[in-house]
């Protein structure tokens, strides 16, 4: 039992070391803000065949919301890529805004919500 605990403790220290090293290894790596062309490519890839009626980029470049028929297609930065989810537009439209960030519940335990910096939400042209 002691040997097991020692092995676990040493492994935990090694994990901490490797995570610190990964932080050092990626220091200074810039992540470009999401622009419209890239957002559209991601949307086309994640939701192939879906027409985009409107697209709003997060002001910090960390995501986007697109309207596609009765659905909202949400991109939210996750590491090097984006978590993409589809929710009903009415739910996205009704999402709460706090401190300049819209919080969209995604009803998915693997991606519970998207929090995106939006100057204004919902967009006037699509407001009910």
């Amino acid at each position, binding site marked *: 039992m002691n040997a097991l605990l020692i092995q676990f403790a040493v492994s935990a220290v090694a994990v901490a070391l*490797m995570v610190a090293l990964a932080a050092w290894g990626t220091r200074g790596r810039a992540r470009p803000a999401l622009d419209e062309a890239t957002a559209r490519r991601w949307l086309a890839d994640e939701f192939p*065949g879906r027409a985009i009626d409107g697209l709003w980029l997060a002001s910090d470049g960390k995501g986007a919301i697109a309207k596609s028929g009765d659905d909202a297609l949400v991109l939210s930065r996750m590491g090097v890529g984006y*978590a993409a989810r589809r929710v009903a537009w009415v739910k996205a439209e009704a999402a709460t805004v706090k401190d300049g960030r819209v919080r969209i519940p995604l009803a998915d335990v693997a991606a519970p919500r998207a929090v995106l910096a939006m100057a204004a939400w919902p967009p006037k042209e699509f407001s009910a």
Partner: protein
Amino acid sequence: MKTIDPVTLATPFFILTVILEIVLARFGKLKATYETSDTAVSLTMGLISSLAGLLTAGASFAAAMWIYQHRLFTIPMTAVWAWIAVFLLEDLTYYWFHRLSHERRFWWAAHVNHHSSQHYNLSTALRQTWTGGLAGTWALWLPLSLIGFPPAMVAIQKGVSLVYQYWIHTEAIRRLPKPFEAVLNTPSHHRVHHARNPRYLDSNYAGILIVWDRMFGTFQPELDEEACRYGLVHNLGTFNIVRVAFHEWIGIVQDIVRQPRHILGWLFGPPGWSPDGSRDTSASLKAQWAARQGAPPTVPAKDAV
């Protein structure tokens, strides 16, 4: 009986090579992308997985010992032919275990976390399940003990397979010489297995020998014209390790509670199965991809931020 654990023996090698990959990538000497949160999740999953495995290790080993007492033959651990045989049969068992873990949701729930990183590096190899023992897939190896392979021998070979599969989780090695690519599971073959591109889904289940995929029709070579994009069909939106470990199990429970009469489908259908077909399975995604050929290209890897 005193036995050896290849995984424990290889742990220093795991640590040193992850460090080496990070450092060499930092200086541009090899291809590898690391991200702090992702690495933390992968390595912590691995660390806790070693503890979680202890919960069921006793039961699974006891079951193997009981089966072994009713064995058909007695196979000596000292014979070379016996090691060759257990190598082949264990690897075949691994292929079917792995295929089951991808093609049926109950077992996918235990395996999904291994595929949940958007990166493909040596730390990804260590992103191991916490619930594999509870999912009971260890039972697939029991027939080897029934045949007559000592459980310790099977355990050692399982460890050898796990250690082998570690080093293939890298982008640093592009292709091995053709004879190796033809027979062995290689970094190239396993990159395809970890890719979320529709054409690459549900392929290359091999442990050590890729020949099983070639035999059973699940082999897919890595194509120069289509770079692998890693992760899940629906990538995680969180680095919360508890969600990483349990999200698919929770999803199953939520689906069953909502539609209990479809419990068998929710449990044992392919991942993405739904009664009304409103969700996508690997098969439907592949079919949609095939139908779209000629459509605009997918997101180039360079667009990944």
